[in-house]
């Protein structure tokens, strides 16, 4: 009984770890996107300022 339960617990623990890691990557990606968006907006603003 214990071996069977241990197997299931380890199995789902490993899968959960992967899902959490995937979520972390997703968050990092969104942060990078937001940072790039800000950088692009700043760059655009500077371009318009230079035109003026």
């Amino acid at each position, binding site marked *: *009984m214990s*071996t*069977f339960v*241990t*197997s*299931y617990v*380890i*199995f789902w623990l*490993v*899968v959960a770890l*992967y*899902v*959490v890691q*995937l*979520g972390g*990557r*997703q*968050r990092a*990606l*969104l942060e*990078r*996107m937001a940072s*790039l*968006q800000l*950088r*692009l*907006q700043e*760059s*655009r603003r500077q*371009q318009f300022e230079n035109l003026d």
Partner: protein
Amino acid sequence: MQNKFVSILCGGLTRAAVTCPLIAALGLAMVFAPTEETMGQVQRILYIHVASAWLGLLGFAVMGGCGLAYLLRRNLAWDHWSRAANEIGWLCSSLTLLTGSLWAHSAWGTWWTWEPRLTTMFVLWALYSSCLIVRSSMDEPHLSARIAGALAILGLLDLPLVIMATRWFRGIHPVSPEMEPMMQVTLLLNVIAFTVFFGLLFARRHSQLVSESLLHQLEIHVLADHPPVVNEVRTIPPLSLETF
């Protein structure tokens, strides 16, 4: 407003389509499936072991196929699919070896033995690991895609050996054991539920890889002081944390 509603509805439906079969499969495997007479409760490991083994093999076939497509077309889009299959397949084959080892300890009295099925599966896992190492250790995407693609195609030769190992070579791994109908239904449901669940993870990882690649290109443009038009940012596929 309507788009948001459709997005929430699709997210909910996807979650339900993945979660419901998983819960049903888990319930059947852990509680409702009959207990095997000889091995007892330990036999229930088979449901997750076979399902993850199937996905480990399927993942390698996808990785090899996409690796071949990359080598023929030299298009990194194929490498993104191959890379996603690499990660999910590695996870599934690791879980196969782990659950198999726990089962073997109860059934054979040893954690590991170099019998044909186990050895060929270990070779597959080693090939998965090699591809992961190659991908993570090289910055040049085309170079890592070429090497990983070649390794994956080489690894495809191991697939029939893993599948047929119990028939072609003499070993101690069980060959399609006799099962009661309820056990067969449980096994089938587990295989389907796991395929849907890991298929979703595969799709999410692929979407991340595509976005990472696009972001990387955009960042290079911005750093080089040649900002692209803002519309380019909008071409990145929408991502949401809600899925997790």
